[in-house]
């Protein structure tokens, strides 16, 4: 079932088009991976989806409810969670306090600690003193406690050791297996494709590939060509 449906979305920065006519979906129980070189528009796309920056055109709907004009807080309460790039923990709050900020009705702190037991022994530690991996776990766990329907994750592997990235990817896969719709923006294509279901590749603000993750993983040459932003290929029909 499609939880997030994005149609013909365009986003500008400083009045210049950065994302143009993007269509994508994120389905319950699946991970949609968004790939692309630096500057392709991936982060701008997520910021437009969560309402950090306004969209110039198109629609964003969760379970049929259009949210493109709503404030970020409203989108969050409608079930859209965004794990931003850069591990945006509340630095002066402890791990436990970070989680309590996001605790929505019906959510339980135990869910967060069950996903990342590593955080349990660090619950009284200020978030600024956590390691990079622990901070990334914390922001994912924090987003989980908002009871999201759709989880947007931006570059969670940036600056982290491979073993931590694998740990995080496993956790994200588990969230999807539990029914969450995940939209994952990632630089490390191979790893993301290995846990993803559907892949989108962006180049110069447009989706130039829309298809199956497994298929793209088996065609490294095509992925390489798409990454380099070479010849634009038509999006695969579904």
């Amino acid at each position, binding site marked *: 079932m499609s939880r997030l449906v994005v149609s013909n979305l365009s986003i500008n920065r400083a009045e210049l088009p950065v994302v143009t006519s993007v269509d994508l979906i994120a389905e319950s129980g699946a991970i949609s991976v968004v790939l692309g070189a630096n500057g392709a528009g991936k982060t701008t796309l997520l910021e437009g989806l969560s309402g950090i920056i306004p969209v110039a055109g198109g629609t964003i709907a969760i379970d049929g409810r259009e949210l493109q004009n709503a404030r970020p807080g409203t989108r969050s309460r409608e079930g859209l969670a965004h794990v931003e790039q850069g591990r945006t923990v509340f630095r002066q*709050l402890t791990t436990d306090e970070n989680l*309590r900020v*996001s605790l929505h009705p019906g959510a339980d702190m135990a869910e967060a600690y069950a996903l990342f037991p590593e955080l349990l022994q660090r619950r009284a530690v200020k978030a600024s003193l956590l390691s990079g991996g622990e901070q990334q776990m914390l922001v994912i766990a924090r987003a989980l406690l908002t009871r999201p329907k759709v989880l947007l994750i931006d570059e969670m592997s940036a600056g982290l050791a491979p073993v931590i990235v694998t740990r995080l990817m496993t956790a994200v896969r588990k969230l999807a297996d539990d029914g969450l719709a995940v939209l994952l923006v990632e630089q490390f294509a191979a790893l993301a494709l290995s846990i993803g279901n559907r892949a989108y590749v962006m180049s110069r603000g447009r989706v130039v590939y829309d298809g199956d993750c497994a298929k793209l993983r088996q065609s490294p040459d095509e992925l390489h060509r798409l990454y380099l932003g070479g010849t634009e290929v038509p999006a695969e029909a579904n």
Partner: protein
Amino acid sequence: MNALLTSAVAGLTAGGTYALLGVCAVFTYRLVAVVNFTGAAIGAAGTFVLIALYEAGFPIWPSVLAGIAAGTLTGVAVGYIMTRSFGEASASTKAAVTVALLVGLIAIGLRLTGGQHPHNMPELFPGSAFRLAGVEVTIASVLTIGLAVLFTILSDLFLNRTKVGLNLRALADRPMAAELLGVRVQLLSLLVWGMTGAFTTFALMIIAPQRSPNFMTLSLLVVPALAAALVGVFRSFWWTLAGGIALGVVEGLASSIDSVSQYRSAIPFLVVLSVLLWSQREARWDEAR
């Protein structure tokens, strides 16, 4: 000696007010990241609603409540402008905007209240509370200091023991991250502006009879308030409280010494200058090395 003590004790009322205004300034800065130059002007707006109603013959305590409500609403209005139009601006831009709003509020306030026209400001808490070393300590002194201490304690408790306080601390650290988690950022920001507006108004109502109660004079009490906040480095409520009270006492002492009494209004500026120079000492040492 007794004259000095009398002057120092006389400065306690002003000190309590500076402390409360300073603590409100720190509260606003820590939670919504604004160095607020309009703090005292917001309080002055509420105080002049009290004066207008009192002069029109309304009973005193309902007028006080109406004044506090007006101060709260003025605070919320200023907060609305700041959060709607300058929410993502830099700290220096926000500070500059509050300076512009201060000028605007003073202009409107002076126009509406008849400029320097003397007003009949009722003394809310007349009389002496107790004697200290032979000097009368007024109820107003005890009340302003008590109010400042109360606000400091309540601020600490509110921020550290309640969910709303926790959300405010998150909001102060990363406003967008907080909003992305569904924290009602605008509502909480307006709550901060409203709360500080109410406390500031009540403090100014107590101190106004001892000052020349015109809109400009009351609005410019923001200078000693920000000096007190600087003593607390815009972080510590307790250091700000101590700084505000000390500032009032020093002003009181200065008023009893003939050679310096005419310069006592410059004392807050000296404090600001001293704290800024002190805070830069490490940079200077680093440069020298």
